[in-house]
């Protein structure tokens, strides 16, 4: 996704950064989900080092913003929460990545 600023070669201002993604823990969650197809909560917890509570609250915020989708299913009577980025989430992450690259070179 290329916006006007990028086309004109201007540096985007910090205000234009996606505030939902910009939070460090959410950025880490988004980054992991961007590089894989899907993952469960346990995998994300181990990789990010967040507590269950923290992870849960950040995931909820990302879900509210429709950046990721949560799929709940039972695997051998054990509940599994599988997460994956939505198309909107992938695009938003790529846009954020481009803006950060422009800002910080």
């Amino acid at each position, binding site marked *: 996704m290329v916006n006007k600023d990028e086309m004109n070669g201007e540096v985007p201002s910090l205000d234009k950064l996606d505030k939902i993604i910009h939070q460090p823990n959410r950025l880490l969650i988004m980054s992991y989900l961007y590089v894989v*197809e899907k993952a469960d909560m346990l*995998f994300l917890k*181990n990789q990010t080092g967040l507590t269950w509570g923290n992870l849960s609250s950040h995931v909820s915020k990302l879900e509210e913003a429709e950046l990721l989708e949560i799929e709940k299913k039972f695997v051998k009577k054990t509940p599994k929460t599988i997460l994956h980025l939505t198309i909107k989430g992938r695009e938003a992450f790529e846009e954020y990545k481009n803006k*950060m690259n422009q800002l910080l070179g």
Partner: protein
Amino acid sequence: MMNNGNEINLKELEKKAYRSFFQDGLWDIFIGILILNLGILMSDTFISNLEELSLLIITSVWNLIAFFILYFGKKFLTIPRLGYVKFGPKRKRRRTYLKVILLINCLIGIIFFIIQLGGFLPLAEINMILTSLILGFLFITIPFSVLAYILDFMRLFFYGFVFGLGFFLTEILYPLFGHPLDTLFAFIVPSVIIITIGCYYLLIFLHKYPRLEKE
């Protein structure tokens, strides 16, 4: 990509996530058991009285045990502790390349075996030390290295090197120590070391990732 002074490298992040599945030491144990099997077969001290069919059954059962350790270990130890993840298309592509390369290697091996069987390549008349070195690297070290590169499993480079060198070492050690000490040093000792490394990684993994009952 930068964030609050902490660099996030997406490629490294993906590699780190992928490599975490090799922290459990199960692949090390699996490879170690396979090499140990080969070492015991080559030493023929413990099994000298057995017929070929019995040897084949023992080898198959041994390799099956190694496979079960890997399969059930991943299923009941690794995934419940590390969590579920499905990697992207890049990894799928790499696995396809891996299959093609290993298939080509296998075909070359079969062709080589047929040529040798037909007497077109009289190995006995060639320098055995040099031949064992070349064959070990061609059919063991190279496939292991390809596997290590594609799987991002760096210890496999070392195992491929040690395993590939095994036949060459047997030739070198035979005049010095005789049989079966040559195979003991060339195959059994390295395989025990590899299994020990695997067990060490497994213990660290079990300690680092305790099983969680609830999400």
